[in-house]
């Protein structure tokens, strides 16, 4: 998920007192979510599986980075990738957690052009494992007890931290777009009877809204679940795999929601992951090849930018 390049989030200058390097905010937030999930609702299904995902992610990162550069990497982004996979993968088996992590990290080193990897690593890994192992893996869709409390906590924490990283506009753009498309899906899929039988009056509007209310609730339901909290705050905001301009980022978020809407019309339960896996790299390629001056500069063109190193 989110990897923090130094070009996007430089360590804050010390002005006295303790200030945590912004690069560690996302790992901290993900860790908080993990701990909150574990201790409040006891919903972390298997700490061992999450530990395995984290370990596989870090080991792969260390191995490939060391092999490529002869140096040791900062593993904070691999740590987040591991936690994210541990939370977003759902499987009774252990092996998908390890393999998704390895695939995710390895993708950074292989699927790249002009010094940038194209896919968000965990997004690529999860999409790959969902396509390759549908009998053994499903995406997280249900967790945190379907209750409002954890959602509020995640949104509050996420908002603060992502705001400090100056990427909250991406989250808002996506959430608003999702709701917009949810209403469209509700109207298109559910054809309110009242819409076609009465002139447009207040009573008529109420009737239409009354008929549509359950359908809208059903279409909006996914974004009230935990998968979307993680998706919104960490996957689509990944500085390494999003375009640079603020307006471009918001446009990409909108397009992700739009493509996701298309997948949802096709009744695909993995819609957000697939949408980001399609829109994300296309947006990056457009930026890299058609918008000058956006390719990031690194010392070694084979190695992903790594927060603590480059």
């Amino acid at each position: 998920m989110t990897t923090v390049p130094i070009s996007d989030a430089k360590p804050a200058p010390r002005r006295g007192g303790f200030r945590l390097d912004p690069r560690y905010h996302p790992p901290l937030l993900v860790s908080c979510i993990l701990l909150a999930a574990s201790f409040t609702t006891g919903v972390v299904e298997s700490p061992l599986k999450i530990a395995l995902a984290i370990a596989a992610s870090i080991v792969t990162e260390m191995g490939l980075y060391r092999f490529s550069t002869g140096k040791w990497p900062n593993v904070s982004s691999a740590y987040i990738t591991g936690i994210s996979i541990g939370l977003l993968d759902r499987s009774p088996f252990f092996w998908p957690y390890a393999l998704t992590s390895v695939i995710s990290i390895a993708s950074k080193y292989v699927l790249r052009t002009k010094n940038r990897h194209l896919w968000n690593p965990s997004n690529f890994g999860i999409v790959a494992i969902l396509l390759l192992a549908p009998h053994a893996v499903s995406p997280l869709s249900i967790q945190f007890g379907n209750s409002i409390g954890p959602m509020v906590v995640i949104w509050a924490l996420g908002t603060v931290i992502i705001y400090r990283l100056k990427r909250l506009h991406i989250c808002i753009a996506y959430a608003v777009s999702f709701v917009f498309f949810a209403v469209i899906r509700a109207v298109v899929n559910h054809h309110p009877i009242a819409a076609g039988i009465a002139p447009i009056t207040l009573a008529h509007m109420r009737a239409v809204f009354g008929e549509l209310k359950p359908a809208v609730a059903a279409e909006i339901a996914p974004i009230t679940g935990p998968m979307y909290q993680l998706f919104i705050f960490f996957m689509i905001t990944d500085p390494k795999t999003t375009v640079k301009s603020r307006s471009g980022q918001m446009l990409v978020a909108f397009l992700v929601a739009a493509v996701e809407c298309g997948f949802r019309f096709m009744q695909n339960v993995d819609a957000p992951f697939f949408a980001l896996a399609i829109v994300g790299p296309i947006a990056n390629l457009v930026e890299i090849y058609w918008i000058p001056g956006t390719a990031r500069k690194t010392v070694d063109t084979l190695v992903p930018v790594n927060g603590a190193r480059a």
Partner: protein
Amino acid sequence: MKRRDLIRLTSAVCLGAPMALARYLDMRCADTGDSPWPAPNRPAGRPGALSRYGFAFEEVSRQAGIHFTHQAPSLDPKLNPIMPIVASMGASVSVVDFDRDGWPDMYVTNSATGSQNHLYRNMRDGTFQDFAAAMGVADLNPPGSGACMGAVWGDFNNDGYEDLLVYKWGRPMLFRNDGGKRFVDITANSGLPEHLNCNTALWLDFDGDGHLDLLLGSYYPQEIDLWHLKDTRMMPNSFEYATNGTRKYLLRGRGDGTFEDVTEKMGLTSKRWVLAAAAADLRGTGYPDIVIADDYGVPEFWANDHGRGFHEIGSQVGIAARPKSGMNVCFGDIFNQGALSIYTSNISERGVLIQGNDLWTPQPGTSGDNIRYQDIAETAGVGIGGWSFGAQFGDLNNDGFQDLFLTNGYISASPDQNYWYDYSKVAGGNSSIIADADNWPPIGGRSLSGQQMKHAWINGGSGQFVDVAPEVGVTQTFDGRSVAVADFWNRGVLDVAMACQCGPLLLYKNHVTPDNHWIKFDLRARRSNRSAFGAMVKLFWDGQQQIQPLCGGSGFSAQNDRRLHFGLGKATKIEKVEVRWPSGETREYPSLKIDQTNVLEE
């Protein structure tokens, strides 16, 4: 090769190799038959299955005179858009020898208003005849009375004849068996609750007083009348941690057909969405513990405090690790080590929701109050079973190891249209959305985990099971709910009866290789409850031991033959049988003959 190329190659291998490995491992998990690799040497027909696996099934319900089709209830019209989901249970089968003629009979519930339950009497010639109407236990779904969900048999008055409890969405009904000649409805003064949305019931003697007690577990909240809803907020408020479930009933039997509600007194206070339960002495205390499979939550393990109460230790023993959609509880000694494993069933749907079923096996070195379970379902090969419902252990090929039969399939409608997308959309939403049936998109004619292949897993004895269902003739894909095993033809083999929602009652006649031997025990209690529910029978033979509990209900809405069946493989004699009776007495029975049913008296 330049270093740069070497780095590229290594990275590519690190990406490609795990992807190929993931694909390979996934195909090993596939239970839908869409593997790109050919099935290894699948035997053709019954002779092939017999020679390779030692048994083969033949579905004979029609030939046996069984013409039963379950009908689902129609609830409040407000639920019409998702009626197949809400009214998705009620098909059940329970085995009993109600007339004590030595041949197992079957009772099957129906659920639509006006539909009839059937009591299939074994005519000893391979056929069954419905005696339900003649015996007074057919017309149990009259208008306004609710819908039958299942039945369990137990001799509450210790007269030697098994009595009948029918549990419903409505008031449960109790029938006294008068000498196998007729059934008398004694519900009115029994002390059974006035209204429940009950989906599981057990006969057990939790305090060892010699009188059978009852456990009733409900699904929808007790206060809801499913035919007259006040509003549509009657669904679970969470898919994994629902908190709007309902209470259980633990009813202490007085031996005369009346019961006292001791639920609070005995500490059974949780409120959950219960779908299945079974009881057996899992900790060696001499008293039955209760394992409950809950939908929308973790399973419960109620430890019996020597008949003085229960306390819940699911987390402590390890089975309450993950919230799933529990729909089955059954026990089996899968390693022949004298310890019972617990099998609970859940949901696995390709690419959508992979909960996996659980096979909880005692960790080595743990027992008694310190017992701990570990889930070995995935390594054992019994984890992925579709939308699983009822399951039962039983030695299907008499090789001396307990096999596992699982039925599954939720809603089979149009095979080309799937409701899973809408289901997952709502199930993952906030509690205010999921709890209101009005927010659930209409299912229409779509399927939801329908047309699923059943599973007949044979146990190799080393903790590895292999699914041979299609090879041994289990090819029907109705929406299975309830499975019961019994030797219906008294041939020394375990046959399988399977009740299907909105479908037929299937009867799989088992053909087993004659090379393997067997022994069966018919327990006749005297001091204990006459049904001997709670007895633990341990058989020693050929350097092995296997324990089986006698349960007053297990699986999902099911009850097996009361006679306990043990396969012996090639062994031609046994060493001894040890029975721990519910009264606490332990007795050994040496020198029993094999290949026959032995009556064991307390």
